[in-house]
């Protein structure tokens, strides 16, 4: 079979996900056995007018993004949203609860008028249809390879619908709640192999909510473990601004 052509694109983001892909090293070479990378600004100067799979990093936050996204959608057979920004808006979406003009003045006090930005930073699915998602901030490169492999095979790229707790338990971690911390693991999508909780951190929700999360119970638990309402909202707000309201 001929190798599918893959192009990488970036929108509002730190480009850290693309950097993670470049860090794959040995696996990246194996990956090149099954795909041709035809455009990847961070790694090469070539560009291509045709590609089969478009991998998009970053959120949709400017009017001018729309035209570019639509062009990508028209060209690519498969569109993959890579990373939290493209998937759920990411950290960029933190600004969504504030007024654009105030923010522009605060961030660019000298010439706020020079900068183009929409009212909200949105996932790219707000602009175009997305066929597959690689969640996370940054993405888990193993999962990225797995999803690309499944797309090449014509299989459902598949994401876990269960929460981080499952993987955290499989790793035999002591629950961070028992250690006096709070964590969004019970309502956040697994697939990261509970990387944060397994390494002394807590889940901050970069992979977004599972389908049908019990946010009421999650809120009650966080309250029981000593968080007031504002801190609960703040913690959800970090990556899941659009869901923070649902917690109240």
């Amino acid at each position, binding site marked *: 079979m001929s190798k599918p052509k893959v192009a990488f694109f970036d929108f509002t983001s730190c480009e850290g996900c693309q950097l993670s892909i470049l860090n794959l090293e040995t*696996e990246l070479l*194996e*990956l090149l*056995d*099954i795909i041709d990378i035809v455009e990847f600004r961070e790694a090469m100067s070539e560009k291509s007018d045709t590609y089969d799979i478009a991998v998009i990093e970053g959120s949709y936050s400017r009017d001018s993004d729309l035209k570019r996204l639509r062009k990508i959608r028209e060209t690519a057979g498969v569109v993959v949203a890579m990373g939290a920004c493209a998937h759920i808006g990411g950290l960029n979406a933190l600004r969504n609860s504030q007024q654009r003009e105030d923010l522009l003045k605060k961030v660019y006090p000298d010439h706020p008028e020079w900068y183009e930005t929409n009212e909200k930073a949105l996932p790219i699915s707000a602009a175009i249809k997305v066929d597959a998602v690689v969640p996370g901030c940054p993405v888990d490169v193993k999962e990225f*390879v797995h999803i690309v*492999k499944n797309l*090449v*095979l014509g299989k459902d790229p598949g994401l876990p*619908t*269960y*929460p981080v*707790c*499952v993987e*955290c*338990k*499989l790793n*035999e*971690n*002591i*629950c961070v*709640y028992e250690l006096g911390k709070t964590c969004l*693991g*019970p*309502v956040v999508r697994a697939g990261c192999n509970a990387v944060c909780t397994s390494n002394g951190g807590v889940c901050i929700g970069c992979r977004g909510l*599972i*389908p*049908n*999360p*019990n946010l*009421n*119970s*999650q809120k*009650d*638990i966080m309250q029981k473990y000593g968080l007031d309402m504002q801190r609960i909202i703040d913690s959800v707000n970090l990556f899941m601004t659009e869901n923070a309201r649902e917690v109240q």
Partner: protein
Amino acid sequence: MMSTVLEKQATKDNIILGLKKAMAEYEIAALTKKEGKILFDYIDDVNKIELQYTPTVLSPKKFFFPQEEVILEYTMEGKVQAKIDYRKMVLFGVRPCDITGIQILDEAFAESNGDPNYLTKRENSVIIGIDCNSVCDENAFCYKVNSQYPDGGFDIMLHDLGNSYAMTIATEKGELFAEQYFDSGRVDSEAMEEFIRTKERSFEEAGGPFEELENLPEIFAENEHHPIWDSEAERCLSCGSCIMVCPTCYCFDVIDELALSMKIGDRLRRWDACMLRSFAEVAGGENFREEVKNRVKHRINRKFNFLMRKHGKSVCVGCGRCVRSCLADISPVTIVEALTETSRQVRLVEKNNELYLPTKAYIREIVQFTEKEKFFELEMENGKSLNHQPGQFVLLSIFGIGEAAISISSPPSFGNRFDIVVRAVGDVTNKLHTLDVGDFVFIRGPFGHGFDKNIQREMEGKHVLFIAGGIGYVPLRSLINFTLKQKEHYAKISILYGCKSPEDRMYKDELDYISTIGGNVELLETVDSADKSWLKNTGVITSLIPMVKFHPENTIAVVCGPPVMYKFVIKALNDQGLSNENIYVSLERRMKCGVGKCGHCQLDDIYVCQDGPVFRFSDIEEKEEAL
């Protein structure tokens, strides 16, 4: 498995030394510390064994049924090979709860289709347990399910006697191992007895087993709709933690993983969990266990009902891991105790015989209605209202004579008085006719399924046709009065009443009053025979039916009378176009208990006393004995 029980004793140093020697031939897995966690893992040094037990996140089942394992290896050209990854190993320091868990998994993986991956790993393992003689923490409840005394699932069990361990050797494998590696001698029986006593005492003090441990499968089956399922499910996060940490859960998913070369691949099995939403989802997207409540129910029922029936003991071993890991504080203990309590209350009613215990009622008024029929007003001594529906009945008893089922003729009321009309036809009713105002009888009930709210609602807006024959007016009277009181809610109310002669008419004043209401209310009467003073119809009751104009699709008929009447009345109604769905009947049967037990009123699979006496006729028309 316990047929070859041997008892020996060895010093603790000796046991550890024995394990060190065994490392030449076996890999040793034991409780150890790793990256700040306490867990069961393979060790390279016996000094790394932790003897002070802290409940671990995962149970040692993972050595035989790992979180993820390859079961097949294949090439894309079509070569395939089964894969079993096993080690010759000693699993040291497993606690009784987890040993009971392993024993259950041994059965589960061996039954019907022997699972090669699990069983090979088990065959190549020696399990050395360390007995507990006290409860490890506040979440453990092994003593509630009796898993602290495993009768299998281990080769050697060590009992801590201070400086040494007494050994219970349960298998040949264990015997060989102990012989080869442990320098052992005779058991200090006094110290061992003391150990056993301490163990018994501490688990008894902890509270002992669930009150109805053996009956839990039945209790769970009885309480499928218990409110606790709702309240627990409301908090449940469906996070799957409880399943991941359970020592007896063994569901798995099967996944194909192709190497990046796209040439070779593995088929894996990975722990799955019925608490996860996707567990029962089929390829088309349909989910057979979409509701959290059903998943919670399924999980707990597997432990105390479905699989308990299969294994003959609780499949929950009370290790407490799910309780420790549940942020929403959902515990099997809470659920088991709530269901047991409900079942106990249900049983207590029966055990107290309240079911058959009647309440005294005084006769407050008697009216001779006809030659054989008398009206009685009764007052409950306990001051309570009967709280009945139209169409229900009571069991009236006179001590020394017996009990008889009697329809209630008064409409529902909040007072403690109610009316009956009784024909003197049997022992009880004959005796009742001899009693006076101020005498007492005994009452049980009300019983049966009467004209409930659903039927009442169904009638609204329609033409209601009451057809009463003789004393059949009494069971209908409650409903008739109820509808007359709000006659504007109905398109029309027709009351057809027939009896033998004008002298046999009951509630004469009431009938005369109804005939004057007018508007949408009509009363048609007939008698079988009469002299010239009778100005109304003469003939059987069916002769009245053609006189009523009704639209069959907007009419509901309610029929009650002597058994012989039904067939003719129903035929006459059918002839007028009324379907059996629109006909309600109130059946008479011999009834002794009133509560669906004695069998007298049974009509195929239904009890008239409980499911009736009021039925939609189409529901029973197929039953030969119905009419």
